[in-house]
């Protein structure tokens, strides 16, 4: 079949997102600038990719079925982003989306370039720890991000990404999300998502590659035995164990993240800090961490601020602030 431009597919599908009750062919043509003659071929192409269409008595076309695939043109349909995911690279199977994203960075691809994969055979966690992936069940992606302004610390990106992922999980899957400082998202005490941020280039602008893995539609049995104890999926935690639309979840994360990146670029941190605090819920907890200089520190969290750090009450009753960037091996007791 003749290849159809992704932007055409996106524009076509967008109409069905806007008009779920269906549209007459001439109206689709009118609204998209395509000709009525082109439309059947587009429909057929999409049917080949797993979309289903229905016809009603009045000749309207309706979108009746969507494939459970992270197809770039489908991610972009209904994506409310101006900067992120304007270029999307799709891999059915890949070693690691991070490696692909770094190659794209070297090629000079723009801020927001997205790499998605249905399956990662060598998904990385921090320190090259493995991130387990089940084909077509999770959402794994990497994003090229310019640090804007250039003196932004990558740590604030971790906060923005974690907050975006937690918000998307809560709103799309309807399960309670918690950020485990600094870079994991948990549901009911088990890990569902991990974030890996890597900065390799100190050129101008400084660029980072942000990798995110979310366990979405795995069932408990899909997770290997040792992992099951500490990790879960959104579906497994959902009442009725209904599967979740992965493209929708991904779009939601991207939309949230774009919003926070705009705020960071404008020097506005308060809303992000509030949202992050709601999801990380550190206040009032006792924390233990390693600090380069102070050694092991234990205290009760009185306040958590992106810019000012953690304010702790220490065992001797004194209060002290620690920058978030100086905390290692953080545990809450």
């Amino acid at each position: 079949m003749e290849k159809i431009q992704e932007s055409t597919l996106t524009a076509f599908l967008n109409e069905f997102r806007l008009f779920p009750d269906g549209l007459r062919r001439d109206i689709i043509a009118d609204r998209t600038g395509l000709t009525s003659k082109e439309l059947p071929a587009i429909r057929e192409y999409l049917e080949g990719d797993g979309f289903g269409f229905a016809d009603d008595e009045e000749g309207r076309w309706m979108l009746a079925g969507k494939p459970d695939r992270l197809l770039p043109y489908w991610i972009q349909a209904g994506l409310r982003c101006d900067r992120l995911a304007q270029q999307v690279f799709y891999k059915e199977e890949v070693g690691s989306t991070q490696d692909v994203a770094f190659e794209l960075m070297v090629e000079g691809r723009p801020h927001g370039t997205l790499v998605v994969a249905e399956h990662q055979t060598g998904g990385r966690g921090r320190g090259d720890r493995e991130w387990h992936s089940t084909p077509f069940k999770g959402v794994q992606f990497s994003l090229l991000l310019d640090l804007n302004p250039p003196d932004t610390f990558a740590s604030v990106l971790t906060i923005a990404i974690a907050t975006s992922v937690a918000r998307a999980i809560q709103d799309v899957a309807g399960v309670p999300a918690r950020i485990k400082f600094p870079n994991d998202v948990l549901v009911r005490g088990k890990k569902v998502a991990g974030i890996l941020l890597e900065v390799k280039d100190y050129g101008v602008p400084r660029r980072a590659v942000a990798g995110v893995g979310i366990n979405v539609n795995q069932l408990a049995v899909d997770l290997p035995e040792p992992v099951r104890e500490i990790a879960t999926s959104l579906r497994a935690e959902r009442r009725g164990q209904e599967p979740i639309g992965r493209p929708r979840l991904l779009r939601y994360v991207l939309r949230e993240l774009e919003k926070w990146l705009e705020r960071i670029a404008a020097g506005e941190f308060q809303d992000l800090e509030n949202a992050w605090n709601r999801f990380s819920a550190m206040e009032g907890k006792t924390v233990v961490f390693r600090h380069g200089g102070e050694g092991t520190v234990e205290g009760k969290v009185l306040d958590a601020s992106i810019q000012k750090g953690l304010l702790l009450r220490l065992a001797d009753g004194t209060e002290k602030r620690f920058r978030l960037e100086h905390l290692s091996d953080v545990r809450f007791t």
Partner: protein
Amino acid sequence: MDVRDLKKIVQIMNDNDLAEVVVEEEGRKLKVRKHETRGVEVVASAVPAPVAGPAPAPPQTPATDGPAPDDASVHVITAPMVGTYYSSPSPESAAYVETGGTVGPETVVCILEAMKVMNEIKAECAGTVVEVCVENGQAVDYGQPLFKVKKP
């Protein structure tokens, strides 16, 4: 600047369909931004505008053993971010650089770790390392000297 000025700015924005306007005068900065849903937002701040990212640490008082400011032959590599300093990629491996070693602009000299982000820091200068100013595992602040490099 008073309310009338602000009205004028909003008028200009409406006339020209602008989403955001920044006015700077007399050491003050005014940012006016239109939101589709929230109307007009005004942010006033003193110039220079606040730096994004967790605020850099207050300016470091120069280390007493630092090079004299007129010592042009020594370049100081400073921390471009807040984090924990690591001299090697992993605890088992050798340090990236040591005193007496030579570096080029692209030489990775250390890792600064912040919230599990590993940042490779490059020398961005060439010469011989004459001093390593920090210890492995030490917390460092923005702008803190890490290495002193004597130019060839």
